[in-house]
């Protein structure tokens, strides 16, 4: 079941990162990114260390570099914003090749770019090494409210069905001469989206009735598998501790 819209970025290989329970990965990576974010931007060496850690994670998780790079494009709008910063930020100006740039803007652009990139790669490691099902059990273990986990699980389960519906509508529309673009076609596209909502809603009602017919009592059965072992938690904590040390060192030692 790979390649469906409901699978996220999951890359199905076997690696130490894949084997780690989802709750450990979630906590460790969020902790890691918090450390990255709170590191002062001028401590350039610290970001080198972080980048090394992230690359090591990607290698350990056996993720194809192409997948990681392709997914990193989600940052693009903020890269544009970051590149604009030197031109619009306040503060003292500096001339580079005859262009007046804001000093704090240059540092800020670097700050946004490096932290955003590290964050995106960390998120890619999480999503590429955790199947949606494992992620749900991890969130359940982390005491996310059960209703929310239930809604999440239905969304993940049906997102490929709904996307498939949408895809078929698009094919039907285009095979009837729709060519997109002009405002006149908005009605056709929007009517499709409206119909998609009605279909999804009715499917939701049917699914619920089917669940009731099969004895659903208002509580989803727990999906939780085994608990994470202490050793696994230690492995996750190792990442956070290293990042924390780097962050503290960067704060104390400076750039």
């Amino acid at each position, binding site marked *: 079941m790979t390649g469906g*819209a409901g699978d*996220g*970025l999951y890359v199905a290989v076997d690696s130490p990162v894949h084997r780690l329970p989802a709750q450990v990965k979630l906590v460790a*990576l*969020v902790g890691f990114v*918090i450390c*990255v*974010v709170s590191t*002062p*931007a*001028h401590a350039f060496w610290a970001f080198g260390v972080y980048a090394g850690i992230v690359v090591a994670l990607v290698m350990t998780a056996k993720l194809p570099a192409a997948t990681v790079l392709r997914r990193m494009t*989600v940052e693009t*709008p*903020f890269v544009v914003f970051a590149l604009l910063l030197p031109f*619009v930020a*306040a*503060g003292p100006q*500096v001339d580079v090749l005859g262009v007046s740039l804001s000093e*704090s*803007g*240059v540092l800020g652009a670097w700050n*946004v770019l490096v932290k*955003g990139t590290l*964050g*995106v790669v*960390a*998120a890619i490691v*999480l999503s590429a090494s955790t199947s949606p099902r494992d992620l749900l059990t991890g969130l359940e273990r982390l005491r996310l*409210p059960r*209703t*929310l986990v*239930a*809604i999440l699980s*239905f*969304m993940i389960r*049906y*997102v490929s069905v709904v*996307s498939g519906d*949408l895809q078929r509508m698009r094919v039907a529309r285009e095979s009837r001469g729709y060519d997109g*673009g002009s*405002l006149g*076609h*908005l*009605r056709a*596209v*929007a*009517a499709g*989206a*409206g*119909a*998609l*909502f*009605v279909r999804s809603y009715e*499917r*939701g009602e049917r699914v619920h009735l089917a669940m*009731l017919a099969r004895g*659903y009592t*208002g509580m989803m059965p727990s999906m939780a598998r085994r608990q994470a072992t202490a050793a696994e938690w230690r492995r996750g904590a190792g990442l956070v501790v290293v990042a924390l040390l780097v962050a503290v060192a960067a*704060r104390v030692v*400076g750039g």
Partner: protein
Amino acid sequence: MHVPDGFLNAPTSLATGAIAAGVVGISLQRASREVRESGPALAGLTAAFVFAVQMVNFPVGAGTSGHLLGGALAAALVGPWTGLLVMSVVLLVQGLLFADGGLTALGTNITLMGAVTVLVGFLVTRGLLRAMPKRLGSVVPAAAVGALVSVPIAALAFTGLYAAGGAVDLSIGRLAAAMVGWHVLIGIGEAVITAAVLSAVVATRPDLVYVARHLQADLVLVDDQGRTTTVSPDRPVAAKPAGRSLGAGVAVTLLIAGVVSLFASANPDGLEFVGAKLGFGEAAKESAVAGSPLADYGVSGIGNGHVSGALAGIIGVLVTIGVGLLVAKLASLRRRAESASEPEPASRA
């Protein structure tokens, strides 16, 4: 649109995380009866719908196409509380399964694109519906205005957060002007798409549209003796009646958000102070030695960064309280509406 990691500093990210958790907690509580009645599958499928429809490119004129953010549309279709849950779930999936938006920025993204767009969209739509004629035809323009307003307000909220915990001392006035100006354009696209999609739903299944439920016409039956009977449409399942627990929830959220954002406002100053003491001085020295064109950067920036940091902290607290008050206000509006309408079904039955 998704805010990545590092755009806002760590304390601000944690504070928005607390706000997001509080808002999601409240909406879980408010929507619990709806969700129990119609099942988690319905909300899940609505979330799948929002997720799918965000990927559709709608032609919005002048040869350009836009895509939907969906907050205001979700609020109009399934109501503010379920809508908020739906948007939060969509953002969670995008963040955790698709690496879209940073992990530490999840709270920020849920606060801005979930809570702010849904609540603003819903409040504006409902306010307009009160003022407009009570017809089904009012729903589409009201929701369109709701969508139009919700996007620039979310941009403003982002500017507020940026003022509290942004990485660079941009002139906040200029940032706000640029953000709002740009997002009014996006908001127009959002309004056009929301109106088009909603009118398609209203045309086929108006009973599914949350904000249109009270606009359903009564069915008038005339029997053979000429007596007329009026049958009201089925009353939809109301959100859970507000209890003391809700008030407590709001208070706890405010407290947490308030405390964390106080921390958020205090900490950057501390960090900058440390930075000034240790980091910046050294960095400047090195750069001067290197003779780079960026030599001595940061040093003169600090004086003004310090003041703007303190100012930004105050703005941040105000924004936090504003968001909290908005939530509390919405909750109390809702409570009043419910206590007014509650006796009705009993007398009818």
